[in-house]
């Protein structure tokens, strides 16, 4: 058990890689009533074509990682695992993203029983033809719910507009048609590939004694047998520099338009990993905050011109293989908004961010990281995500402190390129959206 101290943050992290390859991290949180644990596989919706050494290359239906997540709750006893967690007073859940599937619980009592339940159910799949069929109705309704969600549609529309080939453009839940093709056999193929302990990470944070947690996890894992597995190879089609569609338009039953836009990263950038990637991510967030954050002059003028309101925000996603900035919100005049961005961004990029602006956004970012560190959920999820591309969440504040104005201006000039710019707009239906009773 390795002990890592972060003195400035007053946090201590414990780590060990078990013989079967599972990475285990424990972070005790003084004064907290709650313990939160995540058991995560590096497997998300983008991993749809893969091969393990000695086996055939496989291509699987869209939405299968998410479908698999739903099916893990089913157990051979016929009882849903939620039932066990509830008996032990835990609140359990799971989620699937583009790159990860995470199983989690939080509790204030019976931590060890709940942790054992988590490890055991995620490591004992039970899929049958019947339970696979049943889930299609439930996930079908989840897909329908998102179909009516304008924020999701405009968000996803932008990713679809940006990407020509990369599977990030495929909706995480798939479609009603794609999930119809899922069988228990394909689920087992995905499970056996990606749920090997060497592709997983366990993070436990809260009111815990690290010694006891490590002992429990080690004993639990020692009882289970996993065949060694070679490195999983994932295949992605080459993604060109240019966006798929410059403008993506949709109409939905909304009152005001929603408009999101952003820049796709160039191929060279998304080859980064480790602390280079962390630094690049932070530089991007800092320049975005200076450029269009709520304290920027640009934001203020757009707000005063009535082109944006306080729903306007910005975000950056970066993984090995894809990356993009995204900004937007509700607007009455999406076309004018985009025209202003196309006019104002090049001016600001040419002028650069000032030293004063830079110092303020850097302070803001440091404060917001501290605020996030109040949340055990944020720490566990972000730590795992960073760990999966070989960087360290707790390096964030020192890295931030090391970033210079020059770094941030360079990053802005590298990223803002209108050849990689796309816009997604959801507009109200032409017919009236007034309800009829």
């Amino acid at each position, binding site marked *: 058990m390795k002990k890592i101290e972060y003195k400035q943050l007053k946090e201590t992290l414990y780590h060990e890689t078990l013989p079967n390859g599972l990475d285990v991290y424990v972070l005790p949180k003084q004064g907290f009533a709650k313990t939160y644990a995540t058991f995560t596989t590096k497997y998300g919706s983008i991993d749809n074509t893969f091969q393990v050494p000695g086996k055939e290359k496989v291509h699987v239906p869209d939405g299968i990682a998410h479908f698999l997540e739903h099916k893990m709750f089913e157990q051979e006893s016929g009882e849903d695992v939620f*039932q066990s967690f509830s008996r032990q*007073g835990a*609140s359990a859940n799971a989620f699937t993203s583009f790159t990860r599937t995470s199983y989690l619980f939080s509790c*204030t009592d019976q931590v060890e029983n709940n942790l054992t339940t988590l490890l055991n159910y995620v490591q004992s799949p039970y899929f049958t033809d019947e339970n696979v069929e049943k889930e299609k109705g439930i996930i079908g309704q989840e897909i329908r719910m998102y179909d009516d969600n*304008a924020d999701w549609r405009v968000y996803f529309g932008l990713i679809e507009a940006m990407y020509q080939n990369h599977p990030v453009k495929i909706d995480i839940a798939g479609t009603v048609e794609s999930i119809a093709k899922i069988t228990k056999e394909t689920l087992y193929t995905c499970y056996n590939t990606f749920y090997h302990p060497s592709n997983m990470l366990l993070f436990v944070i809260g009111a815990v004694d690290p010694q006891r947690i490590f002992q429990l996890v080690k004993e639990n894992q020692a009882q289970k047998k996993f065949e060694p597995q070679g490195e999983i190879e994932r295949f992605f089609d080459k993604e060109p520099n240019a966006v798929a569609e410059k403008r993506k338009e949709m109409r939905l039953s909304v*009152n*005001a338009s929603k408009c999101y836009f952003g820049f796709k990263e160039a191929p060279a950038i998304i080859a980064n990993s480790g602390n280079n990637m962390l630094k690049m991510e932070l530089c991007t967030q800092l320049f975005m905050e200076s450029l269009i954050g709520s304290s920027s002059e640009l934001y203020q003028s757009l707000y*005063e011109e009535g082109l944006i309101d*306080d729903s306007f925000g910005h975000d950056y996603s970066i993984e090995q293989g894809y990356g993009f900035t995204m900004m937007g919100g509700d607007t009455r005049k999406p076309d004018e908004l985009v025209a202003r961005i196309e006019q104002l961004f090049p001016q600001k990029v040419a002028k650069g961010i000032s030293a004063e602006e830079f110092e303020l956004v850097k302070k803001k970012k440091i*404060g917001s990281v501290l605020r996030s560190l109040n949340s055990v959920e944020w720490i566990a999820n972000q730590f795992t995500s960073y760990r999966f591309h070989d960087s360290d969440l707790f390096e964030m504040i020192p890295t931030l402190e090391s970033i210079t104005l020059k770094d941030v201006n360079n990053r802005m000039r590298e990223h803002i390129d209108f050849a990689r710019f796309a816009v997604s707009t959801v507009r109200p239906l032409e017919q009236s959206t007034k309800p009829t009773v």
Partner: protein
Amino acid sequence: MSSGQFQTRQIGNVRLHVCPSTKFKTTMLVAMFQQELSTKYVTQTALLSNVLLRGTEQYPTMLDLKKKQNDLYGAGLFGDVFKRGERQILHFGVDIANEQYLHDASPLLEEAVGLLCEVITKPALEQDIFVKSYVEAEKRNLKQQIEGLVDEKAQYAAQRSIEAMCKNEPYAIFINGRVEDIPAIQADNLYTYYQELLYHCPLDLYCVGDVDIQRVISLFQKYLPSEMFTSERKQLGLSQTAPVSVQQVNTVIEHLPVNQGKLNMGCRTHITVQDSDYPSLLMYNGILGGFPHSKLFMNVREKASLAYYASSRLESHKGVMHIQSGIEIQNFEKAVTIIKEQMEVMRQGQISDQELAQTKATLSNQFREQQDRAYEIVQSHYHSVLSGTNRPLEQILKEIAQVSKEDVQKVAQKIQLDTIYFLRDQGGEADEKN
């Protein structure tokens, strides 16, 4: 409700509640103004939450204010309105880094109190009233916000269902106000209303963090004008509502171009947080639809495969329970039947030992977990201020543990289904797929 480890001090006519804690890396300050939920005030109160964040005497533009926040390590500054029973609460808050986690930072608590007080009591003015252009811009934004409710179908359906159920009760009022009130609001009359609210509505101040209570008191006394403490504040009494008995179930179907139907069912529980059987009501709601082991999740989702979500939740001041589920449009009757059956089963006392034990465990866990989030600690304590009913954490846990099956059944027999609301597509053959 549970109250954390708060120390309350009455300073003149203002209450200050402080919860010293070392577990957070930031300090949270919140000011809660209480107003009756009424068509007379609702829109103006909602508008104030936005206008006051536009600028202050010292930081006259939004940009100045944002720069100040950034300079204070991105102090989170927020202002909003929310509903508790038939009260509208206007609240403002600051969440600021504790300097012990920063290199070379000066003390930030005083800055935070100063900023919050500045926002609340010293708005940017022109000719002794609010800045006209700010008020006009925020009127436009508020209108868009109110009209934009329809963009979030689940929230829209929830609000419409409350409107159908509580037609003649203040509870039906939408918390962000009414579009028809907006044109009459001007910089001068809004300013008059603001003065009224600032000095005469009940005010509670909160602080959670690694702080000393005496220090917090003296800072608020330094940064708030003394009239804030001395002015007479109106007595709104406890957040009680008149009992309503259901004569017959009201069904409302509304049409919009949607893919998924949203089913909402509103029930009268005839029990509020002030009643002694409130813990039994919490258990009832938990067994029916509060958790993934609950009857609604198990029967609507897991057994019938009709929905992704099917749950129930309580409004503990008003004494109502809302059930919600997103379903395929043609499954409306099927889903309503299953939900009614589950309520009937509870009326007959068909509650297993397992359901009782699971719900006690998960409900208790929810209460204990609240203690790990500063904002929830504040909200949870404020419930007790509004209701005049203080159930400290240990007490509510004890009361939950004592609830029997018979207690839950008794609650089940009081609960009446009042309204079934369904938001569906435009139906009929004339309609085309959108």
